[in-house]
């Protein structure tokens, strides 16, 4: 790649200059060529970084990625067709190429140059022959690195695994910082036991005689060579030097099995094996601690099938007659203790669960003990689909037994109870109703409101009893909801309660909406016993607004009309002739509507 003489060997940040030529500058054509070239490299590197950013943001099958992959490969093709390779050096600021700095202006901590630089890479060389797949594989390796926790990132290793044919990289040697002294020390440690070196050592008696015998046999065999003598250093070794088709098949099976060796399932098996096989009691606590840590890790990684496997394996061991049964039971208790369940809650609270079926199976393995954590996770999860699934799982785990859920509600903060209330509402048992009744008296009005919302859906007589209690709730919305439902029921308790509320002086201090709702309830019930209180309300002098048209008074008149008994009609007739305009208008209107 051509380099400008004045800037050769030094980095020049690409930035728009003022365009004035200096006396030392080379001819304009050289400069144009160089600008073109640096522009090309900059475009290439920017495309590389853009593609990496996209790879982090888009799913692998995205059209955006497909397009970028093609465009990137085309850019590389164009560049490498005229230059044999593209050599990029790395610093904390970004890429550098051919004396040109290409700083990364992206503010994110996971930019391509940053990940490569912090991974120890100092130079990358893309050789001619690289194709879209290889380029993408390179970016994908760095992407994989970005998804790992910072401590576990090892981009060099990830690149190494891919075995690129056309990408080379230079990385900081892990041991460079250790200093040469230490390596020298290792050399010294390798000092081997010295043997007395002798210039001349004749053959031992045994070897000499075997040599003579061998030669004699060789001559006897016609001198065709050792192979005809059937001398094997190890019996049957010749058979080990030939392959047959069956061998090939079996070797293939073995190599296939190596792929299964590094799976979490294998780790689960191994941990269980260790616990099973360890006979020293003092070690058990440590192993169980280790197991607990891994169990939580599996949950955090949402690897529920492996967690199921671990629990299952321990249960099986615990059910056995062997000495390992007791320690397996201890391990189970430890794993399923509230601390372990908290990990489930924390994990589920983080949101989206890709494999709900696996999660369900896992939760079933643990059993209803996990309900509190599930409810808590439900209250924190932002993903609607996951929330719905979690709710379903709570119900499945409870299996119609509200008593498994109610205690959770008692001990949980309001935001969790708000998730529990609808679940109780879906359990059609007296226990669930009792739970809702309890929650309808909770100190938090949001909870009471949610409980009333569920109570109003219930048809059991007991539901009305709880709702009647809600009529005296301090929260208007709770009272209105309860009243709205009660007005549709023919519940005597509710009736007396409402009559009492209307009769009481406090009625006139109530919100207009509530006043109306109370009278509407009496209207619906059409109960003759309410004539007295309604008459009292109709003829009331003060407290109903003092306007010509007073809705509450009119509602009372309407309620009397609905009751429709003779005393009720008499009240209305008398009222229609009243000297008080508001009474007269209310009664006349009610009678007209008849």
């Amino acid at each position, binding site marked *: 790649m051509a380099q400008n003489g004045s800037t050769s060997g030094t980095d020049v940040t690409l930035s728009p200059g003022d365009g004035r030529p200096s006396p030392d500058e080379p001819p304009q054509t050289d400069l144009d060529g160089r600008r073109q070239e640096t522009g090309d490299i900059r475009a290439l590197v920017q495309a590389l970084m853009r593609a990496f950013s996209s790879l982090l943001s888009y799913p692998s099958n995205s059209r955006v990625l497909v397009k970028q992959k093609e465009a990137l490969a085309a850019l590389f093709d164009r560049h490498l067709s005229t230059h044999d390779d593209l050599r990029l050096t790395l610093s904390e600021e970004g890429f550098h190429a051919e004396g040109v700095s290409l700083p990364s202006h992206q503010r994110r901590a996971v930019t391509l140059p940053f990940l490569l630089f912090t991974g120890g890479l100092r130079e990358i060389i893309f050789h001619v022959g690289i194709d879209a797949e290889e380029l993408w594989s390179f970016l994908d390796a760095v992407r994989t690195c970005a998804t790992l926790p910072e401590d576990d990132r090892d981009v060099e290793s990830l690149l190494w695994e891919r075995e690129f044919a056309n990408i080379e990289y230079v990385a900081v040697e892990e041991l460079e910082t250790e200093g040469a002294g230490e390596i020298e020390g*290792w050399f010294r440690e*390798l000092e081997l036991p010295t*043997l007395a070196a002798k210039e001349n050592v004749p053959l031992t008696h045994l070897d000499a005689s075997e040599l003579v015998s061998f030669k004699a046999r060789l001559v006897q065999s016609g001198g065709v060579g050792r192979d005809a003598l059937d001398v094997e250093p190890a019996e049957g070794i010749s058979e080990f030097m030939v392959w047959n088709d069956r061998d090939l098949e079996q070797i293939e099976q073995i190599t296939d099995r190596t792929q299964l060796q590094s799976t979490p399932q294998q780790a689960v098996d191994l941990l269980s*094996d260790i616990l099973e096989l360890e006979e020293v009691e003092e070690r058990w606590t440590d192993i169980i601690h280790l197991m607990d840590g891994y169990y939580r890790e599996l949950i955090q990684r949402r690897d529920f099938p492996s967690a199921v496997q671990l629990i299952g394996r321990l249960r099986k061991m615990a059910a056995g007659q062997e000495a390992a049964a007791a320690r397996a039971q201890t391990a189970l208790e430890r794993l399923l203790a509230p601390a372990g369940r908290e990990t489930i809650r924390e994990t589920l609270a983080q949101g989206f669960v890709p494999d709900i079926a696996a999660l369900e199976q896992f939760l079933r393995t643990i059993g209803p003990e996990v309900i509190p954590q599930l409810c808590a996770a439900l209250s924190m999860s932002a993903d609607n689909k996951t929330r719905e699934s979690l709710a379903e799982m709570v119900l499945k785990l409870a299996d119609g037994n509200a008593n498994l859920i109610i205690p959770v509600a008692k001990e949980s903060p309001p935001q969790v109870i708000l998730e529990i209330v609808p679940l109780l509402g879906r359990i059609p048992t007296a226990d669930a109703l009792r739970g809702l009744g309890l929650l309808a008296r909770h100190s938090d009005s949001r909870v009471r409101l949610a409980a009333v919302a569920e109570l109003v859906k219930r048809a059991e007589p007991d539901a009305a009893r709880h709702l009647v209690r809600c009529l005296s709730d301090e929260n208007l919305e709770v009272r209105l909801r309860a009243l709205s439902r009660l007005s549709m029921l023919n519940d005597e308790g509710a009736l007396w309660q409402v009559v009492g509320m209307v009769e009481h002086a406090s009625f006139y201090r109530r919100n207009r909406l509530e006043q109306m709702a109370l009278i509407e309830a009496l209207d619906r019930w059409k109960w003759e016993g309410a004539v007295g209180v309604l008459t009292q309300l109709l003829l009331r002098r003060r407290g109903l607004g003092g306007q010509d048209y007073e809705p509450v008074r009119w509602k009372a008149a309407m309620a009397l009309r609905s009751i429709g008994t003779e005393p009720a009609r008499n009240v209305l007739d008398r009222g229609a002739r009243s000297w008080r305009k508001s009474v007269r208008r209310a009664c006349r209107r009610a009678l007209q509507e008849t």
Partner: protein
Amino acid sequence: MEEKDEIRSHEDESTEGTGNRAPGSSSAGFDTDWEKRMVQWGRDLLRRFYGASRVAQIYDPSNVTFKRHMDSFYGAIQEFIALESDVQFRVAWLSLFLNGVRIKTDFSSFAAFKFLVDEFCRRGIGAITFKSGLDAEELTAFLRLFSLGGKEESGAYANFVAALQKNNISHVVISEAGEGGRRKVEDQGDRAAARSAFLLTMGHLKRVVARIEGGEPANIRGARRAVESVVECVDRDECYMLGLTVIKNYVNYRLNHSVNVCILSVAMGRRLGLDRKSLRDLGIAALFHDIGTLDVPDEILSKPETLTAEEFTAVTRHTLRGAEMITRLKGVSQVPIAAMAVTLQHHLHLDLSGYPRIEREYEVCPFARIVAIADYYDAMTSERPYRSRPVRPDKTIAHMLKGAGKQFDLLLLKVFVQMMGAYPVGSLVLLDTGELAVVVAPNPEPELWARPRVRIVRDADGNLCQKTIDVNLDETDPIASRPLRNIVKATDPADYAIDLPRVMLHGMMVQEVAAR
């Protein structure tokens, strides 16, 4: 100049209009099935190419064996040409490509792969293209030329091109190797890298061990990097790496043994055709396989007398403790899980004898089976307090064969035996010339197990050799048509004051003598 132009024209021909793709070149219309088929064909073709070349080294074209191999190779080429128009083998960066598709080596094609890569590198050839129109006669002539031995020299490529022209071979086109194909067969730089990898691996293991002993969490990142170097070095020069395992450090046995087992296991894994990631995982597992011995008192490990029952139990517990320690290196998910399995199972025999004692159905994982073989071999061939002399490599192999299918996996043992040879690398052998030699590489053809490559260390009079003389025992006397040298037997280096590690590392004995 004319010759250069000719070469250029060959190069042009070889890439023009053949539909061939350069290694890693754009794969428009990429087809995974097609690629898989190519890999299968490639391996098959490679084996036939190798077989025919080897036979051509030994037999005359009129020989029946030669004809059989020749027909097989020619038939395969014709079949391939019918499908793909041309057949191109290209070597770049020590990888082999067939019509642009990389042919990853597996154990069955290993010898062929190594042979071809070495031959390409030795002659500076980048690619050989068999073109449509090739006839059997021309192929025979080519194979005769290709099978001619000779030392690596700067003009090897030009000489080969000239020989092709002289023999009117026009349907086999060769092109010169680029930078990536220029590795020398015995590159000193590679060997320095191999020694460095060996020492660095030991150094990293030492550091991990020190941290574990200090009760601190250990980071295996450095060890991982070192094992990656081992994988690369084994890939470049397997024999030299195997030669390094002859180093047996009595004082620091644990570290030395672990690194040796790591090298042996990686080499086996490579022959099985494992991918790089698996090889690294296997290497790490092998490196840490004995980490549990940190928990066994040194007095027990170095006790020369027979162990008491209690002491033996303490020793057997190292597998369990080791597996546990592995998980503590950096958490269960951060270390290769295979390392846990290997540490736990490497003394568990295939028939579930050995330890830890397992009395239910149980399967020993493949990596543990590999490491068990490497571990046994290295332990037996090392000097230990309870053994006056290490067991000779050939005797160790003989012991191991008795355990095939019971203690060791039969097939994996086959791979190991073929890799090490009947006279394993580092064996001292007595030749029928009266010379003493150290085996430096097994014969790439397993059936020629009695004819490895050796380094003569003492002449027939018992004198130390003044310079490195390496000979292939399959070299034949051209007149008498019989081998020049035969192995009489393997013998004990201690009887002849042979410092095997130094012979393997440095070759020339005279320097060692002068140094003392």
